[in-house]
């Protein structure tokens, strides 16, 4: 495995840093292409792992190759050939070997076209997010194969044990192989449906990192970054889809506030009390531009609407000068497009700011009468806020108590308890939005 992937500039680049960068930037592309060539997830993953192991010594010894991705591709392919020669249990082994050897003999010119690798990555995304896999498996597989996250990190992020997560991944890969989940971008008639599925997996990864307060903060931040990376990749691969842009814009705009959401003591800071100088202006700028591009396509969707709402919050110089009327209208449009109690509660909150707490309470009334929402914590938290602002301290007290009972998240619960305490103590200590 000495000559692969072009020339060298010995000693010019730090091999450890180069390897870390290659792992981040090249691994998914190399893996995606190799999966297409060998037709087997597990075998391809093992061979790519081999290639990175080989790089540790080879790059240290010979210097970092000029084209690390090409080097890894060729090395991984040769390792796959070695593995296939040893592993007699793989079905169609003979055909796969012949195909790999053929590709290898043709050298890499035809293979390192960037567009081919990009197509492979898109195939990989659609396969990992195939609806025939259970949702947690889709999420884990996407993070494992497209992101650079290891099984242990994914397990930690989703608060399950490493063996449990390992089994989940193994089972998903076995199902892809045995049930023959195709490795391709779905045909046009299935594409809109399947793309929606892919976007929801990416957003779920983001939300897992963004909203939950339990678990390792560092790993959670990594989930947000991975989701944004996937979003950016999808934007590059499918630049004409406004919802792909909308989702990525939404994640960027939310993520811009990540640093301001938790204070140094680890306490949750609500939007209206955040230190706006902590917001990431680079992300806001990028997200806003992306959203504008999406909106120009004139095909609205739920992610674009949510991104527009997030943008309005960020544009306001402070909480009091937020365009709540516009936000309420966007929630109304969102409710028509994808009806959900979450949207209705948010709309009531926005209307409560735009037209006064009584108007908000009126909108909330049907949700409060819905027995399915009896245990929906955000409903009771929003109810409490509106009642307090309407001056109904006794009812607000009851709603806070109910919201606190239902809160599964310690940071959020602490915040609600603080508000209840302020209400009982006359509410003068801190201004409440």
């Amino acid at each position, binding site marked *: 495995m000495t000559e692969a992937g072009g020339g060298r500039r010995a000693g010019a680049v730090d091999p450890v840093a180069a390897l870390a960068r290659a792992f981040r930037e090249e691994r998914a592309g190399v893996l995606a292409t190799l999966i297409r060539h060998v037709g087997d997830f597990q075998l391809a993953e093992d061979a790519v792992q081999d290639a990175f192991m080989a790089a540790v010594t080879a790059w240290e010894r010979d210097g970092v190759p000029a084209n690390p991705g090409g080097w890894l591709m060729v090395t991984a392919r040769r390792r796959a050939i070695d593995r296939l020669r040893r592993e007699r249990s793989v*079905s*169609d082994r*003979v*055909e796969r070997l012949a195909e790999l050897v053929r590709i290898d003999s043709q050298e890499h010119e035809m293979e390192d076209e960037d567009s081919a690798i990009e197509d492979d990555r898109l195939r990989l995304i659609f396969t990992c997010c*195939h609806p*025939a896999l259970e949702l947690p498996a889709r999420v884990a597989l996407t993070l494992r194969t497209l992101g650079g996250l290891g099984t242990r990190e994914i397990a930690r992020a989703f608060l399950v044990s490493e063996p449990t997560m390992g089994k989940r991944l193994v089972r998903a890969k076995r199902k892809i192989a*045995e*049930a*023959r*989940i*195709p490795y391709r971008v*779905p045909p046009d008639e*299935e594409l809109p449906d399947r793309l929606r599925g892919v976007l929801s997996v990416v957003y779920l990864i983001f939300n897992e990192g963004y909203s939950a307060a339990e678990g390792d903060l560092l790993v959670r931040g990594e989930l947000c970054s991975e989701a944004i990376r996937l979003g950016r990749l999808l934007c590059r691969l499918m630049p004409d889809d406004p919802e792909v842009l909308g989702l990525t814009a939404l994640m960027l705009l939310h993520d811009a506030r990540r640093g301001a959401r938790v204070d140094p003591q680890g306490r949750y800071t609500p939007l209206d009390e955040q230190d706006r100088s902590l917001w990431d202006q680079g992300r806001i700028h990028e997200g806003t531009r992306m959203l504008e591009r999406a909106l120009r396509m004139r095909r609205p969707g739920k992610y674009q609407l949510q991104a527009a709402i997030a943008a309005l919050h960020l544009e306001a110089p402070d909480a009091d000068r937020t365009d709540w009327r516009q936000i309420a209208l966007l929630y109304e449009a969102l409710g028509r497009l994808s009806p959900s109690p979450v949207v209705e509660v948010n709309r009531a909150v926005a209307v409560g700011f735009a037209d006064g707490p009584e108007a908000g309470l009126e909108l909330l009334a049907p949700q409060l009468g819905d027995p399915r929402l009896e245990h929906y914590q955000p409903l009771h938290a929003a109810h409490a806020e509106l009642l307090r602002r309407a001056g109904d301290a006794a009812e607000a007290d009851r709603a806070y108590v109910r919201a606190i009972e239902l809160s599964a998240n310690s940071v959020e619960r602490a915040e609600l308890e603080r508000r209840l305490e302020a209400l009982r103590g006359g509410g003068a200590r801190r201004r409440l939005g």
Partner: protein
Amino acid sequence: MPKYMLLLYADQPDEAEVQRREAAFPRWVELTQSLDEAGIRVAGDRLADVDVATTLRVRDGETEIVDGPFATTKEILGGYYILECGDLDEALKWAARAPIAEWGSVEVRPIVENPLDPANRPAAAQQAG
């Protein structure tokens, strides 16, 4: 070519529901015809009602025969198809055309290829097309 079994499940219908299901009969015929035109139907049948099923077990050399199905469940296996499809997506597309998917469900299971079966040897497979 990989094979899939489509297992057709539904619960026991009440009288009004029976009529609705019978109305779908032409669509079953149409589906079977389409499968045959595509040349991918290996087999496919409707099963007799579950109340005429007999279940047999051999334990310690003793044969035990029981009147009734293997398990009493709400959803009952009422029929099946065996299809040759290129991949799961193709099998799922056909499954979606089975009328029973609208009131029951279709389980799509890959059939394990038997490497000892002459039909599955690479040379034979190539000849078969």
